[in-house]
């Protein structure tokens, strides 16, 4: 196979998608962003930012430098409202491509204003996922678009490959500076240093942080430094093969879970991107099968109804989780939130379940 053909294969055949799987992914992603990933911390936060004197307006180098102060609260509210409309349209599949692009752009702009206090949080994947997936035609089914005349029902998998490339590269950008900074030097235990920094300066002291601060094993911490760098750099290499990439996504879930337990950092936005690489068609088929078994209905309508049931169930779960999280009755002393902890534990259980199923299937085949 020539290089040209390989390149073509990589772009178009690395990941397989179906209209149903993408439709389900669109709905779950929309709900996930709506409940947990909208930039900023709501109206109060926007009002606070709008009130900050321009002396403290420190936009990161880029287009926002054209402004000389934070925008008024009305601008924040306008962008927030625009984002909500776009996300609801994305959820319902109404002009899905346009809605997804609008959601991506408004997330990006809101993030830009929030980061103009002088610190960029690395959450661009929240904007990237809807923006890229807009081109997969993830509104092909289970959408208002699908009942419009002349609607194109073909779906594309290349946006998933492109997202893998972005995620792999961004992971590389997390690993490369660590090499320059001395993480691989056996005389430095950098992960341990970061743990102390988070523990004492930012008072991130939940879960295992207190225990790990006292845990002093040079070999353990140095291995952790090396493993972190190899994992983050290796992510870029894994982009060339979809199976490797999915293994790295599994490692990423384990990595973020351990980071949450020790450094109390959840990196929740990344999970939106990782979720794209789940086998959504299988999730859709399993859900349909269970719905049909439970209700006894077999017709074509059961496809839509099974999906609506799952979507409503997910929305309710997210709503309850969001509400419980906002009550702030656990993790009170931490900036970790209940929903972050629950979602990361759920993601961990999912990858353990996928791993166990793979092992069982392999054993059965033998």
């Amino acid at each position, binding site marked *: 196979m020539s290089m040209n053909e390989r390149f073509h294969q990589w772009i178009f055949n690395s990941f397989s998608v179906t209209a149903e799987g993408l439709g389900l992914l669109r709905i779950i992603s929309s709900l996930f962003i709506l409940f947990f990933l909208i930039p900023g911390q709501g109206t109060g936060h926007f009002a*606070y930012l709008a009130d900050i004197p321009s*002396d403290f307006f*420190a936009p*990161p180098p880029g287009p926002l430098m054209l402004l000389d102060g934070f925008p008024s609260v009305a601008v924040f509210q306008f962008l927030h409202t625009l984002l909500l409309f776009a996300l609801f349209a994305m959820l319902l599949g109404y002009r899905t491509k346009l809605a997804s692009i609008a959601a991506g752009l408004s997330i990006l702009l809101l993030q830009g204003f929030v*980061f103009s206090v*002088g610190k960029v949080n690395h959450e661009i994947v929240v904007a990237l996922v809807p923006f890229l997936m807009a081109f997969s035609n993830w509104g092909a089914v289970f959408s208002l678009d699908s009942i419009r005349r002349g609607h194109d029902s073909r779906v594309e998998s290349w946006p998933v490959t492109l997202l893998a490339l972005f995620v792999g590269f961004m992971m590389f950008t997390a690993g490369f500076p660590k090499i*320059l900074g001395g993480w691989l030097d056996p005389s430095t235990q950098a992960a341990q240093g970061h743990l102390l*920094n988070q523990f004492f*300066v930012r008072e991130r002291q939940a879960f295992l942080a207190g225990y790990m601060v006292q845990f002093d094993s040079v070999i353990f911490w140095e291995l952790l430094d090396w493993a972190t760098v190899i994992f983050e750099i290796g992510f870029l290499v894994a982009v060339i093969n979809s199976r490797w990439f999915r293994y790295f996504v599994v490692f990423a879930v384990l990595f973020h879970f351990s980071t949450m337990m020790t450094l109390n950092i959840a990196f929740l936005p990344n999970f939106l991107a990782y979720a794209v690489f789940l086998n959504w068609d299988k999730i859709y088929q399993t859900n349909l099968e269970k719905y049909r078994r439970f209700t006894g209905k077999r017709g074509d309508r059961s496809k839509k109804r099974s999906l609506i049931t799952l979507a409503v169930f997910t929305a309710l779960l997210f709503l309850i989780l969001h509400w419980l999280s906002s009550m702030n009755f656990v993790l009170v002393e931490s900036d970790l939130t209940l929903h972050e902890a629950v979602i990361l534990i759920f993601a961990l259980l999912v990858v353990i379940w996928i791993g166990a199923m793979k092992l069982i299937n392999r054993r059965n085949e033998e």
Partner: protein
Amino acid sequence: MKVKTVRTVFIAVLIYLPLQYGIVGIVGFYHSEPWPAFVFPGFKSVHVYDNGFEIQQTYFDVYDEVAEEPVRVLPQDFFPELPLSQVPGFLRMHFQSAEEVQELSPGAKSWLKHHADEAAGVDASKLVVVIEMNYYSHEDDVLRRDSTVVKERFTIVLTGRP
């Protein structure tokens, strides 16, 4: 989208990603990290010295007209409305040197006074920013703070409404 267009997009992204990373490195070195950029946090620092760790901590010492002793407030308590993940960046950008804070406008000082009043529960007249370097090491399996060095200490005279 046509196959040719998609291939062109991929080639453009493959060229763009390393290029923008180079730009992020250069701009970040001279100013701060640009936005938007397709990068994740590097956590480059190692916080290590000799056989221990050095951890930088900033405090706000809030004085009122009467009391001699200040009320010491952690930055995250001084700016509780800011997400914790953004507080260190905010400090790095605005509270690193005496020169920077001397240029603050009356409006900014009034805004800081409001925060100081709220955080310390006093009628604040003066804010002293203290940047310390704390040194930690493990002794007998217990983590201890060996010593503390004050790196920077500068004062902001707070004013009421401008």
